[in-house]
């Protein structure tokens, strides 16, 4: 049992678990304490100095974000004195921040801007001074504008601790402190894997995704172009947040939206996820049941993970599934299968992927196999956040749109396809089909719940026709290291490998927590988004990929067998060790 603490905040009695901070405790009694550096998802960094409160008996002010509540404490969170200090601190921060709000990617969506508005700051009392640090767009995915950085440290924490990438760091000190890759190289030369968690956690416009919405609008305006679109599973359950709705699934409204925006075909990445499972489950069965190829098989549909592996763990290449990620498969299919069947010149196709992910922007040109159709398979990737902006620009009342259907040929999906969006989903989907491939029967229960949930590494044993399959699901790159090391250790010692099948997603929570998703992600939101995804799975009649009739037709009409020649050409890729980066 936890020890409970009783204290008083602004005269209101509060009872919380021992260790609860003043900030959290205040929230419980409907008191909001402003902060710029504390993010719900992260431990406090105590950098901004805005969340100060008074504790009776001390003439100091304390940071609510990191001061634990103690028995009988009497706290004042807002009095004229505190508000005055907060105002001064806020003005100080603003004096070191450009007034570019109108032309900033975070306009109207910026935590600093919002606080400045709350405090009604209408005059600058302190002389403006800016740090002259150039913008860094070298990754082509993540844009760093250190000038706008308030040094809250969130990006550093996610990059170093959550993701274990160490692309970003604090350099120098005092007024010279800045965020930068180590040793003044640019982001493109750094170990950055483009997961985008930094951009998703940044309170200001200091780190943003590269905005490709203009390219989409341009293509939509171009009458020569045949624009097709696909959405990833995690997008549909998060886009609502940009319009104030959480935990809802907007699949059918999104279909309607895309048509109104001018897309000629509306597909769904979930369909390709079903295809992906056909290939990946086949790979697994080949290696597991027919002993062709090394185990464990490791999933490869997360591009940040692929980049991470190529940079830091190239010895794992042989374990990687060669199946391309779903949106790439769909991209290839639109420029081959779809154009052939509809007699369209593939060159006219402009394929847009709407992803919860920033690394997908990098993936579309990662290697030669991303041009399997003979053209670049996907032309542009935009993130959920960019889509939200496009919706607002389009003037469409998104929440009140009628529901529509997708274009079935490359759109209809099963429950297995949609759960790709959450950690453990790919594994679960693959197991559903692998069970069938191995046994020839359908599993009685399609749910493999041991793969679900937000625990960093989920290990379990699955019984497939009397054979135990040892699996591991890891999300958040810092947890991946654990799994990889176990495999490596066992290999080195010549012992039996600890797993047969491993799923890895770079972002905590999987794609629902992706770096391109709406701001303010935290476990609560990750759970809501995940629940919406599993609800979709639950609601489906078909819940295994191999039963998707359109997938069956695709293989029958066009591809042949999974892992066959054509499948190999269109759906598979290769990996290579990237020049050894030092984290």
């Amino acid at each position, binding site marked *: 049992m936890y020890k409970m603490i009783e204290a008083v905040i602004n005269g209101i009695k509060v009872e919380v678990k021992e260790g609860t901070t003043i900030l959290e405790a205040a929230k419980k009694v409907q008191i909001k304490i402003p902060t710029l550096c504390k993010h719900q998802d992260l431990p*406090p*960094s*105590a*950098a*901004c*100095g*805005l969340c*100060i409160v008074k504790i009776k008996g001390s003439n*100091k*002010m304390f*940071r609510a974000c*990191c*001061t*634990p509540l103690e028995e009988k404490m009497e706290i004042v969170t807002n009095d004229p004195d505190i508000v005055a*200090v*907060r105002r*001064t*601190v806020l003005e*100080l*921060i603003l*004096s*070191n921040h450009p007034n570019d709000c109108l032309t900033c990617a975070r306009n109207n969506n910026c935590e600093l801007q919002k606080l400045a508005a709350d405090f009604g700051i209408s005059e600058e*009392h*302190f*002389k403006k*001074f800016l740090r002259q640090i150039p913008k860094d767009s070298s990754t082509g995915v993540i844009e760093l504008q250190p000038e706008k950085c*308030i*040094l809250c*440290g969130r990006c550093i924490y996610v990059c170093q601790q959550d993701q274990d990438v160490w692309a970003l760091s*604090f350099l*120098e*000190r*005092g*007024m*010279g*402190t800045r965020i930068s890759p180590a040793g003044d190289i640019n982001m493109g030369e750094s170990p950055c894997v483009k997961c985008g968690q930094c951009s998703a956690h940044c309170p200001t416009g200091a780190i943003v995704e590269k905005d490709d919405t203009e390219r989409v609008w341009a293509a939509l305006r171009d009458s020569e172009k045949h624009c097709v679109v696909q959405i990833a599973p995690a997008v549909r359950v998060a886009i609502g947040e940009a319009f104030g709705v959480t935990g809802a699934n907007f699949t059918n409204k999104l279909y309607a939206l895309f048509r109104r925006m001018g897309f000629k075909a509306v597909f769904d990445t979930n369909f390709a996820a079903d295809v992906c499972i056909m290939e990946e489950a086949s790979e697994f069965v080949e290696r597991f049941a027919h002993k062709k190829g090394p185990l464990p098989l490791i999933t490869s549909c997360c591009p940040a993970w692929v980049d991470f592996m190529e940079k830091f763990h190239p010895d794992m290449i042989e374990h990687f599934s060669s199946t391309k990620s779903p949106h790439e498969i769909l991209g290839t299919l639109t420029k081959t299968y779809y154009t052939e069947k509809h007699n369209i010149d593939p060159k006219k196709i402009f394929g847009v992927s709407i992803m919860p992910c920033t690394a997908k922007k990098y993936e579309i040109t990662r290697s030669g196999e991303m041009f399997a159709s003979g053209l670049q398979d996907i032309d542009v990737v935009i993130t959920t956040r960019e889509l939200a902006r496009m919706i607002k620009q389009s003037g469409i009342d998104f929440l009140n749109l009628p529901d529509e259907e997708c274009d079935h040929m490359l759109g209809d999906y099963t429950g297995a396809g949609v759960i790709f969006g959450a950690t453990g989903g790919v594994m679960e989907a693959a197991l559903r089909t692998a069970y069938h491939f191995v046994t020839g029967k359908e599993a009685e229960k399609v749910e493999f719940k041991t793969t679900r949930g937000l625990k960093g590494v989920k290990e379990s044993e699955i019984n497939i026709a009397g054979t135990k399959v040892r699996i591991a699901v890891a999300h958040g790159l810092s947890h991946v290291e654990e799994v990889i090391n176990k495999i490596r250790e066992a290999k080195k010692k010549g012992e039996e490998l600890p797993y047969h099948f491993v799923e890895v997603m770079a972002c905590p929570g999987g794609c629902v927590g992706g770096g391109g998703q709406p701001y303010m992600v935290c476990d609560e939101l990750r759970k809501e988004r995940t629940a919406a995804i599993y609800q979709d799975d639950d609601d489906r009649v078909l819940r295994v990929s191999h039963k998707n009739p359109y997938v069956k037709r695709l293989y029958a009409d066009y591809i042949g067998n999974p892992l066959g020649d054509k499948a190999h050409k269109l759906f598979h890729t290769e990996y290579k060790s990237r020049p050894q980066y030092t984290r």
Partner: protein
Amino acid sequence: MPHKIILVKDTGAVENKGVDFNTMLANQLRDSGAAEKASIVPVADIGVYDKGLVLRILPDNVTYSNVREADIKKIIEQTVLAGKIIEELSHDGRDKQLRIVLKNCGLVDPDSIDDYIRAGGYQGLRKALLELKSQDKVIEELKKSGLRGRGGAGFPTWMKWSTAKNQKTDQKYMICNGDEGDPGAYMDRSVLEGDPHAVVEGMIIAGYAIGASKGYLYIRAEYPLAVKRIEKALEDAREYGLLGENILESGFTYEMEIRLGAGAFVCGEETALIASVEGKRGTPKPRPPFPAVKGLWDKPSIINNVETLAAVPQILSNGGDWLAKIGTATSKGTKVFAITGKIKNSGLVEVPMGITLREIVFEVAGGLLNPEKKIKAVQTGGPSGGVIPKDFLDTPVDYENLGKLGSIMGSGGMIVIDETDCMVDLAKFYLGFCVDESCGKCAPCRIGGYQMLQLLNKISNGEGELADLDKLKRIAYAMQKASLCGLGQTAANPVLSTLKYFEDEYKAHIVNKKCPAGKCKYLLMYKIGEDKCKRCGVCVKNCPTQAISGNREKGFTIDQVKCIKCGNCTEVCKFEAVAKE
């Protein structure tokens, strides 16, 4: 009667002239037939100041001050010939200094553990381990002594130790903070260099008291000699079995290691220091948890500074009550000050708590560097401290009194300021230091300090407005309240305290565009005095901005707009014709 030596020093006598006096003294000695009985030695310094002619007669070791010509005869007859002391001339030779922490500095060879043991060293450790044989009893002695941390805040040492002692865990750490960063304070360096074993012994005793098995000495990398001497001390202590396994057969095992700082003032802050020992950026962490609960590598850790630890061995060997007899009700023992600035004898002084600032300045440190100038204030506590104006010089020095005056004890920097020093300039110096040394983590300190410095620059450049004073106060308040660590919370103190006592000086800069002390160069005006100018034209050639015009017939003038106040003209003028005002 043994041969007498008469040391003579003129300490600023008004009536007598030293040289004549020596002749008179010699003559009278000869006349009294005592020429063979005593020799006269004029000396450079005698440790007594502002007391006219001072004689010290050896080997009697009696000191006479304010000696006049008329006294010579009496001195020869009574003291030189008869060995009697003349009470009315006798100078109260009681040394205002009391050396506890610096006891061995200048006495022992720092590289010799034998010297230290001969001076009574390691007796404190012995008492702790072999007589008291109890962590609680050691802490009890500390409690009795009333020793408070000498690093700045003055937190009772025993309380810290007791907190750490009560933590139940497999590992605790003892850390010595030797990252003395206060510009102008160097007592820690002096102790580490002059009496390293005292620090080592203090560390072992502290380690025993809290239940640590490992100690780290964190020393500034800029102190290579201190590091060398501590290294040697550790080696020798280990060899003697005073460090390492089963110390003095007591069963207590303790190891120590040196870690170097790398030039970051903020690492004087406990949590920043811990981060630095861990090999990370020295950025402070929020407290709680306090290091005594969760410190180095998340284990309970105690950090004491060098001066505190150096006092510990003697507290143990002499008993806590011994120290408690020295000092004031709340501040026990002595404090070492590094006194510099416009003072005659800059150096380290160790004085009992409760002594007045006036005594320190005029009696211990020899008074002002230039006695013609007036003292304006004394700054204590370094960059986190404040100024104490001359009206408060009679305040007894202890933690509480300094606090009441808006300053602090700090690590013991003491700067004497005379009328030629500008308070705006001084505030700028200290604030500039803190801005340079801010770790950059928290916004109030990082940006607040910078903005205040800009405002001070504006004022000293003659561009200040009265509203700037309010802005300074507003930022200072926010920094005090909203900064994460001590550095930011106190960085504005020098500004606030100079503003409190010398607001007029600020206003002179702002309203009259004048620096009363003549220090702020943008408020100075260089002028060529017609009467002194010989029209040689050297100043014209040396002016980097061609601000001086004129010719040999008409004379030269300085264009105040073009002048960048570099002072070259004053320097090159042989006739002192260029004056600044």
